[in-house]
């Protein structure tokens, strides 16, 4: 039973100022599923639509973002939720932070800089559950934080007194306080140093392994996906171009964009020349016709310019959208 089913999701941003109206198609016909107990990676560069996708999945669609079609359905065991139709009250009481929580880039957006960490915990638990007994609450939080390997006196510090890595781990502690079924991590380690990043990601993996929940991990850094994700979906210009288990993506991908991304990753110990990809990322207000990648594709065919390639299943777990692939397995 998939935890999350997204089908044919389409969304765009509509802005109108001084008579100039713009429509940016950020998410164009996306379908995928999240299973319980997995880490699902979404890779893509700027303006590929991954931030929009997260907003919609987490129920955060406000104008100028509008959803034009498709379905977003969750199965949380006891109840199912249609994210596109859910009301604010139900969202706050049942779903937000209890079934779905987030770890964002920049922990300072979650941690109030003028309050001690424990107060932020209080706020969250008060909003979603209520705090009947102070002592029980305090013990519970301390136990939770200790389990994650953080010293208990972190709770009594202000955010600016902690290092960046520690703040991000506190953000993870906040996100896991109700043991949600889905954690959405949006570039959680992008601004962190490489050693700190390793520590934070290792913590995230431990949590996932123990509570057996699902983590939707979004980052542009493919090497992080290699070490963290079970399956990876590559997004380009608002569409998923390839989705497969991590090993397949890295060693036997089929889409030219994926292949280029993998091949151009620099590795210590390797000084062979790696060429860059020509062209520029697509302008989502005026995307290329047919396959969105065709202006930059080194293996472009005539059909790619006019017809958008359908998503083809290469085997049970691997699918890609490219005209170069003939029906299942060439």
């Amino acid at each position, binding site marked *: 039973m998939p935890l999350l089913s997204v089908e044919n999701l389409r969304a765009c941003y509509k802005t109108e100022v001084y008579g100039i109206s713009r429509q940016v198609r950020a998410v164009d016909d996306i379908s995928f599923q999240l299973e319980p107990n997995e880490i699902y990676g979404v890779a893509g560069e700027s303006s590929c639509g991954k931030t929009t996708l997260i907003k919609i999945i987490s129920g955060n669609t406000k104008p100028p973002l509008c959803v034009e079609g498709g379905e977003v359905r969750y199965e949380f065991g006891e109840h199912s939720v249609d994210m596109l139709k859910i009301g604010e009250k139900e969202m706050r009481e049942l779903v937000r932070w209890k079934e779905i929580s987030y770890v964002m880039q920049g922990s300072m957006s979650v941690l109030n800089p003028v309050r001690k960490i424990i107060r932020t915990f209080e706020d969250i638990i008060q909003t979603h559950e209520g705090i009947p007994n102070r002592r029980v609450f305090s013990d519970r939080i301390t136990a939770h934080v200790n389990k994650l390997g953080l010293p208990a006196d972190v709770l009594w510090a202000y955010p600016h007194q902690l290092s960046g890595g520690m703040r991000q781990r506190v953000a993870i502690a906040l996100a896991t306080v109700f043991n949600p079924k889905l954690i959405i991590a949006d570039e959680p380690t992008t601004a962190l140093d490489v050693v700190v990043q390793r520590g934070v990601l290792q913590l995230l993996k431990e949590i996932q392994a123990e509570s057996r929940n699902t983590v939707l991990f979004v980052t542009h850094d493919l090497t992080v996906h290699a070490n963290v994700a079970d399956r990876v979906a590559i997004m380009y210009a608002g569409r998923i171009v390839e989705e497969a288990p991590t*090993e397949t993506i890295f060693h036997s991908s089929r889409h030219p964009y994926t292949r280029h991304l993998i091949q151009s990753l620099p590795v210590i110990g390797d*000084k062979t020349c790696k060429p860059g*990809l020509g062209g520029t990322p697509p302008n989502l207000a005026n995307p290329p016709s047919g396959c969105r990648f065709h202006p930059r594709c080194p293996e472009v065919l005539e059909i790619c310019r006019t017809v958008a390639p359908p998503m083809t299943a290469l085997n049970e777990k691997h699918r890609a959208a490219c005209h170069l692939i003939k029906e299942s397995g060439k």
Partner: protein
Amino acid sequence: MSETAKLLDVRQVSRFFHIGGLLNGTRIIAANGISFFLDADKPEIFTLAGESGSGKTTLSRLLLHDLDPSLGSVHFEGQDLASIKGRRAGMEFMKKVQPVFQNPFDTFSPLRRVEDYLYDTAINFGRARSRKDAVPVAEEALHLVGLSIEEVTKRYPHELSGGQIQRVSVARALIPKPKLIIADEPVSMVDASLRMAIVNLFKKLRDEQGVSVIYITHDLATAYYISNRIAVMLRGYVVEAGPVEAVLDRPLHPYTKLLKESVPKPAPEDRLSWAKRIGLSTTEVKDYGKVGCKFAARCPQAMDVCLTADPPDVAADGRQVKCYLYSTKAN
């Protein structure tokens, strides 16, 4: 070696900052006794690698003459940077040393056309007399970085991609025909698919244009890919420096080893060793005040002597290491 044979000579440079009030502040040593030099005859890419708080940004500002050292001196083509006073001397220096900044979308004012900066540079450094004459100069520079004037003309920064802007930034830096470019994390904010084009561009500048580059980064993989030599920085010290193959293939300093191990590799099959639990520091300011090696608290091979005083610089295996492990006196 004679003075003028060195392009850039950094001699025991230290820079202090005072934070906090008059009575209870602390002194932060952002750069501590840093020394290295670049040859004038051999263009190279020299990487300054380190995490945040390592001092690499402070060092880049010292090299660009944005800051003056508290101790030591920086010499460019034999001239002490501290002796550069006045606008004319400043312009002469800027002709030879140019920067490339980290954030492509802040490098140019969002309200000005990007080409205006190219023309300004051409006119101010005497390569053109008027805007009309500056156009072929700009065209030539853009061509060097793989862009055409049509792609850039009349565009505002938000109409270009991050990769294109960084290339325009490099083109602008090339107009005065500099000998040295200081690139501060030039690709960390650029998309992965556009990153290699910029990185390859630096290689081309070194090989075909004879321009040396000081490449400041925290990304060891691209550092390995393009640099000749690397200096690994930690809390203001250079802990290991030498040819990049030696330092990164066979790291000696425990911190370099930790850094190299922590860089995630694009190999899913190796992920188990990367996920080993490691200790992280809680706060960062504490480290600055410590005596002795700044890595001793986290070092798996720390000895008692490491906490007593700064480790000496030792030459070992074709590079320089700041570590008691390799010092003959400790053994």
